[in-house]
């Protein structure tokens, strides 16, 4: 039985702005096991990225603030650490890959130096050892002729190559965990598949846990073992990937599944089911269940009371009144 690496409990992050308080992340709970890939899924603005940045302690403050909750990593509550202690964890024990490979690398420094920077910072490597390790890392992320590419600037590389460099930076210090925030969203489909299989391979060979944040259920199906579905700052469903796809429970998850284009026979014309309406305004959340205004199955209670995360068979959890008795 693998150990729990990361345990997020009751994490609540709000943004205090002139327009009011945005409840971006509200009482989020999940855990990530050692060597596991866990995926957080949801639409834009559901709080996925804020959850990731809260774990990293990178919420811009002001306006953002973690109101309550705990983030236990290897037994230590990260939220109790000082900024200086947190810096020793960032890029070292927990590293992060971002959505935009085109703009996530600093345009004025050579990619080799950008990778070496973390090695010098966290592992005190000297120039030569750092360079050797950088070339080794570029090999691992399958960048051809790494001895030459170390001296490239980001603008000399394609998007896929830059994302590989970002992965190399993330891997540099053998982290326990990598948070990948929409790592393939900005890439071509063929490159997406390459990057995903690379991440999968690397996580298996190094035993690194991955917290994969995405809105793309295709990506989830391909890589994750367990899935957390988020909606408007709340966790609405938790399941292993197989049962989630076989038998989605929450009406929102069912809606998400319905909006994936499948392979359809030639003359059968099937319209995709879109979820009606839009994500609620985080400054002014509706009473009751946050999904109720868009839900096909909503009944009276849904508009008044917010359901808790009910247990469902097979260790699954779902936040919907339909499953109160299950």
């Amino acid at each position: 039985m693998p150990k729990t690496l990361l345990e997020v409990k009751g994490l609540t992050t709000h943004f205090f702005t002139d327009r009011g308080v945005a409840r971006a992340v509200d009482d989020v709970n999940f855990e990530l096991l050692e060597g596991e890939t866990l995926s957080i899924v949801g639409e834009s603005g559901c709080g996925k990225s804020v959850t990731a940045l809260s774990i990293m302690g990178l919420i811009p403050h002001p306006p953002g603030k973690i109101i309550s909750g705990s983030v236990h990593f290897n037994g230590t509550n990260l939220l109790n650490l000082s900024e200086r202690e947190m810096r020793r964890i960032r890029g070292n024990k927990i590293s992060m890959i971002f959505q935009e490979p085109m703009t996530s690398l600093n345009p004025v420094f050579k990619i080799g130096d950008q990778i070496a920077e973390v090695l010098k910072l966290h592992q005190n490597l000297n120039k030569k050892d750092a360079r050797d390790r950088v070339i080794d890392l570029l090999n691992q992320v399958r960048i051809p002729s790494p001895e030459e590419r170390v001296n490239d600037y980001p603008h000399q590389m394609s998007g896929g190559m830059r994302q590989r460099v970002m992965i190399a930076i993330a891997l540099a210090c053998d982290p326990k965990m990598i948070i990948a925030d929409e790592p393939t969203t900005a890439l071509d489909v063929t490159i997406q598949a390459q990057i995903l299989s690379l991440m999968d391979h690397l996580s298996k060979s190094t035993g690194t846990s991955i917290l994969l944040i995405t809105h793309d259920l295709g990506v989830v199906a391909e890589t994750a073992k367990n899935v957390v579905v988020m909606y408007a700052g709340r966790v609405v469903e938790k399941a292993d990937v197989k049962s989630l796809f076989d038998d989605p429970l929450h009406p929102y998850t069912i809606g998400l599944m319905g909006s994936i284009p499948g392979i359809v026979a030639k003359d059968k014309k099937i319209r995709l089911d879109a979820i009606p309406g839009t994500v609620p305004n985080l400054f002014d959340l509706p009473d009751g269940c946050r999904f109720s205004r868009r839900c096909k199955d909503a009944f009276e209670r849904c508009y008044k009371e917010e359901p808790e995360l009910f247990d469902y068979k097979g260790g699954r959890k779902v936040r919907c009144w339909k499953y109160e008795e299950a």
Partner: protein
Amino acid sequence: MFPTMFGVSVLIFFMIQLIPGDPALLILGERATESSLKAVRINMGLDKPLHVQYGKFMYKLVQGDLGDSFRSNEPVTKEIAIFFPATIELSLVAIIIASFVGMVAGVISATKQYSIFDYSSMVFSIMGISMPIFWLGLIFILIFSVHLGWLPISGRLSAHMEVELVTGFVLLDSLITKNWAAFRDAFWHILLPGFTLSTIPMALVARITRSSMLEVLRQDYIRTANAKGLSPLVVHYKHALRNALIPIVTVIGLSFGILMGGAVLTETVFAWPGMGLWILNGVYSRDYNVVQGGVLLIAFIFILVNTVVDILYVWINPRIRVN
């Protein structure tokens, strides 16, 4: 660079002819006879048509000869050797103070936006830009020299100090000859005029650094740098400032040229024996060769500095490099 220099030489040569007044009359005085005036004009070559005069001027210029001063009869190059180092030294000190203080203030303002520091540094920079420099110089002299007695009132060196001149730059020469007492003396002398002259460029640099940094700090690669666990100092001064640098060095380059030409007021207030005062006196006495030579040299330095800035762009931003 050369076409620019040529254009500048034409402009300077013909513009100076627009100043009313006859050099010969100014040299000989009002009661000079017509024939002696004519003799002086012929002697100085002022009787020839303008294009011939320009041709002669250029012919001598390429040989490094800027003609003689009408007033002192000394070669202009020799006078430049005396006055030019003082101005360059003052301008360099001013631009170094302005760049350093301006950039640090700008970075702090940007990283602590809307803080007390941000507001007060922006108030100071508005004041720095709008304050008349001769007045500010006088105020500084009153406070630091007269009342507090910390710094000398004027000049480059105290009267009893002697420096063996090698380059003409007093600070440098006293270092070369290991004359520490003179170095300290020259340093105290240049502090007040240097700081006075630096206020305007300092304010410009601070404002441009702030706005450029604010733009850069929102970029994704700054988030990456933070996620690497780098300290704020490294994130701000290495990752962000390097990207924000292009508009900043542009302003510094332009300011340097303006400083050199505009040092007249500061030089007057602090009795600094520099080019500004020398050229101004040249204008009053219609000393064409002095004005031409001086302005040409300043223009040359200005072009040179901005060429260096262009080269710096390439170093700062690798995307500008041509493969």
